[in-house]
């Protein structure tokens, strides 16, 4: 328990620092790589918690596909150092910071007061007994959530078509 907490704590600090880097970095590529780091950290967290399937998905899809897409776009558009990206002292930043801090404060208060309700049946022992995280998830996915699964496939096709349509050059 203590090891897990320490491990979780280290990963958390890592992710938090990278998030702040992402907020303040001047180059777009730095931001992209920071996000990559955060994704890796999050995947590690999932793994520590025993969610192997989600961790793998996260690595493959999020870190592997999406971030590649972003880096490609940055390369294609040749986005360079954009100079004065934002000033810290502007009213915009101040107001945003205040709103953010407010949300942080209130949210943190709620979280710390939260007493979760352990009503679930999927304890780690049960999951291990049933063949592991992936097998359990896939079983639930293809039985109870099948319609959503098909709908998501449709959404992916739509997104694919939409992305191509939006980005292609207009035929004169």
């Amino acid at each position: 328990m203590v090891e897990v907490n320490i491990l979780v704590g280290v990963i958390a600090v890592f992710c938090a620092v990278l998030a702040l880097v992402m907020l303040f970095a001047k180059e777009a590529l730095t931001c992209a790589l920071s996000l990559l780091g955060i994704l890796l950290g999050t995947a590690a967290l999932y793994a520590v918690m025993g969610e192997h399937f989600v961790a793998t998905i996260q690595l493959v899809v999020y870190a592997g596909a999406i971030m590649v897409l972003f880096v490609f776009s940055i390369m294609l558009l040749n986005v360079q150092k954009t100079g004065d990206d934002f000033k810290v002292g502007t009213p915009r930043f101040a107001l945003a910071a205040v709103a953010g801090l407010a949300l942080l404060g209130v949210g943190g208060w709620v979280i710390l007061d939260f007493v979760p309700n352990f009503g679930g049946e999927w304890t780690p022992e049960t999951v291990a007994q049933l063949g592991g995280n992936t097998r359990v998830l896939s079983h639930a996915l293809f039985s109870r959530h099948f319609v959503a699964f098909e709908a998501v496939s449709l959404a992916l096709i739509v997104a694919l078509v939409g992305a191509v349509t939006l980005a292609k050059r207009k035929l004169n």
Partner: protein
Amino acid sequence: MTQSNLPLIILLLPLVGFLLNGVVIPWAQKGFGKTTVAQAASASTIPLFLAFIVGLIAFGQVAHAPIGATAFSWLQIGSFSVDFALKIDRLSAVLVLIITGVGTLIHLFSASYLAEEPGIGRYYSYLSLFCFSMLLLVLGNELPLLFFGWEGVGLCSYLLIGFWYTETEKANAGKKAFVTNRVGDLGFLIGAFLLYKMIGSLNFDVMTTKFAMWKTGGYDQFLVTATCLALFVGATGKSAQIPLFVWLPDAMSGPTPVSALIHAATMVTAGVYMIARLNGLFDLAPDALTVVAYIGAATALFAGTIAIAQKDIKKVLAYSTVSQLGFMFMACGVGAYQTAVFHLMTHAFFKALLFLGSGSVIHACHHEQDMTKMGGLKKYLPHTHFTMLIGSLAISGIPFFSGFFSKDEILYSAIALPGGHAGVFYIGVATAALTAIYTGRMMAMTFYGEERLDHHTKEHLHESPGLMLFPLYVLAGLAALGGLLGVPHLMGDYLGHMPHMLSHWLDPVVPARALPLMAIKLPLHEAVVMIGSSVLAIFCFALGILLFRRHQTVTDLVHAFAPLEKVLAHKYYIDELYAAVILNPLQKLAKLCAEVIDRLGVDGAVNGFGNGARRLGDRLRLIQDGDVQTAALWMVTGLAIAVAGILLLARI
């Protein structure tokens, strides 16, 4: 009261004439102004004549009991309800016959007088509408119905006086008549409201019963007097008394038959009718009656003095009408309501006759109305002269013509009745003398003496056609013999117990006052008054004719009279006085309202709101700077506040 459809038939027949002339015939001819005289005249006259016949039938029936009908329930507002209820009783029967009978004669006269008028369809439609309104006024059994007719005749008089509206002066005369009437109507309305407040109903039957109950007390004297005075103000407007008589002389701008019908026979008598109808109420307010009597007397004398200095033949007759109406109000004011109705009837005959006769003269002289340009017309217009002579004798009060009986009764009532006043008597006598003089003057200047016509007019001089002469003769007969309906007891007893027929007829509705043989207010015997007034009338009439055969104005006779003559000829400058005191300040006030209050104040406020909204929009518009992130920032701020608020509140 027996139920009958006759009142409704009588009322609706002139309306048929109006609809025919106003709607059906123009629709059939696909345009206004294409009606021929024959079409228009028959469309209006035949229904009115039928109404006269039905009126005669009703007259016979009413001898037993009043006949009435309720057409429908008109107004129902809470506890205030007014039905469209008509009733013919003995009083309204007399008036119905006058309206329809004299009206028919005037309709016939107009067909010939206005034979070349292009707008004849419009004219007859207005005449029919007028007859409908006047009949509604006298037939209505509810005060709002009377008022409906009251307003209707006011409207028709506006339409008819301003008939030739393309001439600004004539249009203004119509406007003046309507507006002056309206001022009086405010008084009428106040009186009606007070009546409703006191009694709770505006039905004449209910009111009459209540008035009878109040004879023994139980009424608020102040309210009753106020009501009577308010109603009398309405009567001064409609019946042209001081101070609201100024419209009647101007009303001579309209066609002459209109003057005959409206301003001699019917509309102006509406005020007298109203007072006679509400005599029970007026009896309870002796102070109001005194006011009525004195204003009537003052008006009579006032108008008489003006009449003697007028050159236009129609203006003489107009002021004569005002004067005679003053006599009628004098009669009402001393409590002799029957006498007022009697004089109303005889006045309808001889005044209509005089107006129609003057129309005949004007028609012959090619629309010349100035008496100084007439003279010696007796040999050219014998029939017109004869009939007008009868009318003049009647109005002057020469014995045994109709005017003598009614005027004499008024004069004697002024001193014989308990409600009489000696002052009213003296003024009445003076006015009677004046009446005879100016009427004689009118006859002399028009028919006798040297001819002052211009050459062109003299060539075209001819007697009027038969259609104009027939009504003149009928009215002359009535003017001559109409008085026999009201022979006083003093004379009647000598002539074989001839009764005062009108008095007996009106007794159940308008109570009689027993006239003692010896007057109360002034110790004179009735015979003395009768003989004295006859002598005075004959003398003054003869004086008028003889004096004015050669001269045209009083100044010609008495040179010192010149300044007074000027004042009289300009009718005491009363129109100028009203303009200065009332009209000009009103116009200035209106100008102030329009230019300052309306333009700067109201428009400024409205435009100010608009401008303010626009300026606010201009400022607010700048919030949108095209930056999506600004919008997102505001959204998040709102979200943060909302979430924080909800969570914190839930915690508390």
